[in-house]
């Protein structure tokens, strides 16, 4: 119903693409350990405090990741009606996938989550992340000891009548 009315309204979509690319090369060294936080034993404090994709990968113990097309984003939307809940679904078809991480370029801390995939578990996870603004989102895959990255731009829209 709504689709019909709005089909005529064709507007260029602004994406956060260009900025996101620069972000890939933001130098490491921004790791700011947050000592005030208690933490679970195996929690990688450095990686979660890192800013930028490169810095995050480094903090996770990897080198510059290779770009990959072997990632399926499943039901991950291109436009999120609300940044507080953005569904992210990532399936890796890279053999020997060991972990899947979600990185949001423009969030205050880039790394959202690291999922470790043991043998017997599908290299596929769905969860929901917060996004402060439109941004590139990265799937960072560790497979057979190497890192791979795939990008998805997600636009976060404004809503509501009371601001």
């Amino acid at each position: 119903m709504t689709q019909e009315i709005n089909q005529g309204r064709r507007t260029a979509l602004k994406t956060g693409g260009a900025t996101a690319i620069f972000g890939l090369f933001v130098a490491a060294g921004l790791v700011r350990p947050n000592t005030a936080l208690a933490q679970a034993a195996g929690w990688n404090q450095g990686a979660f405090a890192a800013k930028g994709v490169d810095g995050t990968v480094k903090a996770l113990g990897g080198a510059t990741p290779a770009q990959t097309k072997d990632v399926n984003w499943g039901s991950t939307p291109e436009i999120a009606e609300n940044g507080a809940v953005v569904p992210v679904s990532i399936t890796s078809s890279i053999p020997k996938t060991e972990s899947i991480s979600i990185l949001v370029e423009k969030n205050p801390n880039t790394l959202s989550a690291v999922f470790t995939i043991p043998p017997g578990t599908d290299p596929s996870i769905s969860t929901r992340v917060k996004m402060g603004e439109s941004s590139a989102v990265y799937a960072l895959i560790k497979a057979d000891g190497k890192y791979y990255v795939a990008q998805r731009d997600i636009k976060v829209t404004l809503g509501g009548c009371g601001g």
Partner: protein
Amino acid sequence: MKYATHLRNALLAAAAAALLVSGCASTPRVSAEQAHDVLKTSFTERGQAKLDRLEQDDVQKTCSYGPGTAPSKEVLDALEKAQLAAIKFPADGKLLGDWRAGERIAQTGTGKQYSDNAAVPSGANCYACHQITPQEISYGTIGPSLLGYGKVRGNSEAILRYTYGKIYNSNAYTACSNMPRFGHQNILTEQQLKDVTALLLDPSSPVNK
């Protein structure tokens, strides 16, 4: 004449109500006074929103109608005339402000809610209802698209005054418009009204690119 219109409107109202509540023998009638009295017992003041907000002015009284009960053309014409006469144009004669400030006002949805800080200037929330600049894809459709507003209409004194006046008091041109009377009701300041006018009419505004 007037009586006949009223009678027709009343019949239409009854028919509309019957459509919604089919199978119901009698739909009780509720007067504006009854509605007002119920509201008075149902709300409490909070923040800047006091109970006087439940009191209607002439425009609100005239415009609180449902389907099939619209006031006569004479009533609506008189309403427009009275509202037009109440518009205060800027004393300095300048109607165009800063379109960039206007864009911020158009994007801002806060102001006058009980949850808002009364000391912070209100926004106009234009994007809630109108498409304005091509860059903003999150816009509403309650009002018409204003894309290319100034490019289409030009920048004549008449257009300037109409645009400023429409933002100041929408009811001066369209009785019972859905659009707030931003100047008349002191939602926006004179400078803010000029800024929003500039967003629509300044040739360098993205609206007109």
